[in-house]
């Protein structure tokens, strides 16, 4: 079983991280950085204002960047018949989805946390704020990954699924965003803990909701 999980994870990572269409993991990172770069242009070079609002902008940019790869998370494998072949080998949809959540997070979570460093410099965040942003991203992005895979599975096979999945993710990501960005204002551990809690709930639901969605899409 471990060998099978390793094989699935290897395939997912090489698809999402290295050689995916649309630049793999680079596209969300570049998108994230361009938002961080555009924001000072839009609001003007007011350093205190940028420092006060910059953390929230990083969170919004991270959420939107996580939406970018959604359309190639689940649907291509349903079309290729991969899920059918896995089912025949006794590999459940739940396992595949759980592995995919891990792969999806690895493909955008750590890269975004790295990209948050130059973004923080662009927005003039101080070290303390940056620390809260980084810990918040570490706690929140796994939840965003789980949510992304779940919604990708739910919208697979629908016409305009890509646009729809973006719209579905945004409202459901609001708790993570509120606690994550909220922890910047209070600077306290409680906000981060709630971010992690919201994240864990999403991670716990994802394999079952995603697995059921894939089976329903198969018809």
């Amino acid at each position: 079983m471990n060998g099978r999980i390793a094989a699935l994870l290897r395939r997912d990572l090489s698809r999402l991280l290295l050689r995916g269409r649309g630049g793999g993991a680079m596209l969300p990172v570049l998108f994230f950085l361009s938002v961080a770069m555009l924001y000072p242009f839009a609001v003007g070079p007011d350093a205190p204002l940028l420092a006060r609002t910059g953390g929230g902008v990083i969170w919004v940019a991270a959420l939107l960047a996580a939406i970018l790869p959604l359309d190639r998370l689940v649907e291509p494998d349903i079309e290729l018949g991969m899920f059918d072949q896995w089912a025949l080998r006794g590999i459940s949809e739940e396992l595949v989805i759980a592995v995919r959540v891990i792969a999806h997070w690895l493909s955008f979570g750590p890269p975004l946390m790295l990209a948050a460093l130059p973004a923080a410099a662009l927005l003039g965040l101080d070290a303390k704020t940056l620390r809260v942003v980084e810990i918040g991203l570490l706690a929140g992005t796994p939840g965003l990954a789980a949510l992304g895979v779940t919604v990708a599975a739910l919208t697979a096979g629908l016409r305009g699924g890509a646009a729809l999945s973006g719209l579905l993710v945004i409202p459901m990501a609001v708790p993570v965003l509120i606690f994550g960005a909220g922890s910047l204002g209070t600077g306290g551990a409680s906000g981060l803990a709630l971010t992690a809690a919201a994240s864990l709930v999403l991670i716990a639901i994802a394999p079952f909701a995603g697995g059921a969605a894939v089976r329903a899409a198969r018809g």
Partner: protein
Amino acid sequence: MSGFLLSLGTMQEAAPSPTSIAVTDLACRRGDRVLFSRLSLNLKAGDALQVAGHNGIGKSSLLRIIAGLAPAFAGSVSVEGTVGLLDERPALDPALPLGRALAFWGALDLLEESKATGDLARLGLVSLLDVPVRYLSTGQKKRAALARLLGQKARVWLLDEPLNGLDGHAVELAETITAQHCAAGGIAVIASHQTFRLPAMRILPLSDFALQEQAA
């Protein structure tokens, strides 16, 4: 853990596990149309069955129900033995070279290197291993899917239009491979409107089980 699975695999090879398909009073519904009903069949090790009938009569649906991938509308299906499915989708990553796309399934199926090499040579795929799957022709993809099926070492083969896109030589090859699978105690169910030459194959005309008013 993987050592345990490996020994389990070799055990199965040594003493063939029981292989059978029993379908009782099966009905299949697509949308709000009942495609066929009261279908019963029994297959035991070594049997081959061709499901015949015109397009849309439910050949693929029958195969998917037997595979457990689609629900039966009524009736029951019980299958003993591992199931392999070959349909119009090769389940190989289009962007990957053929060799790596097949290696993914080889890793999942605990496929031995020697058998993999032998199967590839037999299907004439060796020269294509570096070619990305999306550049392969329909027939080449079909042969690649056959390699995936052989590597799975499943007892029950469900072949959905296995000859589509294959040239004369490859058709004979597919027939020989399927005949050998049955001779080794496997079961093959073939859904095709083309002739599939196999020794002692039964033919199931699915139109016999189509509902009267729908057939008209």
